């Protein structure tokens, strides 16, 4: 048989010799291995205090984006809902009234925008489909919940914080996205 790697070893089924039946040598070897592991670096971290960095291609919870003045990007065109293979996205469109120009960037906006996180497979197709850069996948994951309806995220859960009113929260929610995009475009 062709081996995939050169580390493969055939299984040895020879009966044990009397010395092996005492198991001593193998036990000593095993004990030495575990002893070495005491002094090794810990693989785990103290989770709530320390967090691991996400990989650059990580796709987490969706975020509804705003532009620099804090207006919602989404125009409720429905392309994300069409692109979604899990059919997790629903939305209802509404027309922007006069006087709401500081809230919505264009004449049409999403009055209701829901993503069912139980259906979502975090594939990122919604982000790719969006022509307005209105939805993208962030670096957080959905926290646990006691009820199914807690996993249907509405607009209030998804919208990014206002960049003018809460700049710190906005920067935090933005995360390393800008950097990543730069890297992606330069590649």
């Amino acid at each position, binding site marked *: 048989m062709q081996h995939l790697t050169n580390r493969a070893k055939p299984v040895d089924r020879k009966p044990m010799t009397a010395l092996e*039946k*005492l*198991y001593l040598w193998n*036990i000593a070897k*095993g*004990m030495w*291995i*575990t*002893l070495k*592991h*005491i002094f*090794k*670096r*810990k*693989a*785990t971290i*103290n989770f709530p205090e320390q967090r691991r960095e996400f990989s650059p291609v990580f796709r987490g919870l969706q975020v509804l984006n705003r532009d620099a003045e804090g207006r919602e990007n989404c125009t409720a065109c429905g392309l994300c809902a069409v692109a979604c293979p899990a059919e997790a996205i629903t939305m209802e469109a509404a027309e922007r009234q006069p006087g709401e120009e500081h809230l919505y960037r264009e004449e049409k906006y999403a009055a209701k925008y829901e993503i069912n996180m139980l259906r979502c497979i975090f594939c990122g197709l919604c982000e790719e489909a969006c022509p307005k850069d209105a939805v993208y996948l962030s670096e957080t994951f959905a926290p646990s919940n006691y009820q199914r309806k807690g996993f249907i995220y509405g607009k209030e859960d998804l919208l990014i914080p206002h960049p003018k009113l809460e700049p710190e929260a906005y920067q935090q929610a933005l995360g390393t996205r800008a950097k990543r995009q730069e890297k992606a475009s330069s590649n």
Partner: protein
Amino acid sequence: MITLLAIDWLFILEKLILIVSIISISLVIAMYETYAERKVAAVMQDRRGPNRAGPFGILQPLADGLKLFMKEEIIPNTSNRFLFVLGPCMAMLTAMMTSAVIPWGGKIHFTLFGADRWVSLQIADINIGILYIFGVVSMGVYGIMIGGWASNNKFSLMAAMRGASQVISYELPMGLSLIALLMLTGSLKMSSIVGGQIDSWYNVLYQPLGFFIFLVCAFAECNRTPFDLPEAENELNFGYHQEYSSMKLGFYLFAEYINMFISSAVMVSLFWGGYDIPFIKDANLAEQIGYNWLAALQGLSMFIKIAIFIFAFMWVRWTIPRFRYDQLMNLGWKTLIPLSLFNMIITALVVLLREYGWRF
């Protein structure tokens, strides 16, 4: 017997204090053994272990104990109620009783009502100390068997059978390895066995094979990995204490840890010099710092030795997989018993030759 029961109230008070303190010490140690077990397991698997309750998680055992107390107490409907409760009590009782004959340190000296009193840190120095330990350990089987049977559950019963036959099988090589040791010490008294090692070579140097056999058997008697077949989680659903809940389960688990502590103490006393402080002449030290401080230091040295053994127990547990049942029995009957017989004969030969001045 009469002298023991003649009314010497001070004597009784001393012994009572000693008993209470030793029992509470072994309980506290058993508590922290559970913590140490989890920590050792963690560092050997590159994890961190419990570190939330208190600094470094040292309050974790208290939290665990509280959890066990708060759990619902379930007694299965079909089981035998009395025996069901008796099982964990037996396990706990036999685990605690062994500590009576182990010498924990030298003598303490104090003056009370103008009279000098010397108190040795040993509850009872009976002249069959080792056999007493054996007797109590062999009683430990009943905790397992009664509990397993009274649960009225096939898995519990099978696990209890396994546990009992394992303990009986491994008592034999244990006893045989001890016989070789007793040929050297010439006494069954714990205090004189330890006393013979103070300021001289430890018995382990004369009896390395005997010590090794004793160690293996101690693992088996404590039902620890690699011999933890009675509680094989994946084959027998948690073994003989499967039907137990709340503090009755806690008693079984606790008894295991106390057994571990006591068997470490027995091994230290028999083979590693007991409370002797290594590399130092204890008698010289006593002249410098007084007998009470010496006794404290001796106790400390004993507990450090015990801690090393307990660590070894845990180290082995997190290294070696469980034996199969036939391997276990083969190891006990076909390897350890012949080995210990061989050890016994060699020792007897050497002792005899030494007695006749190395002439045939």
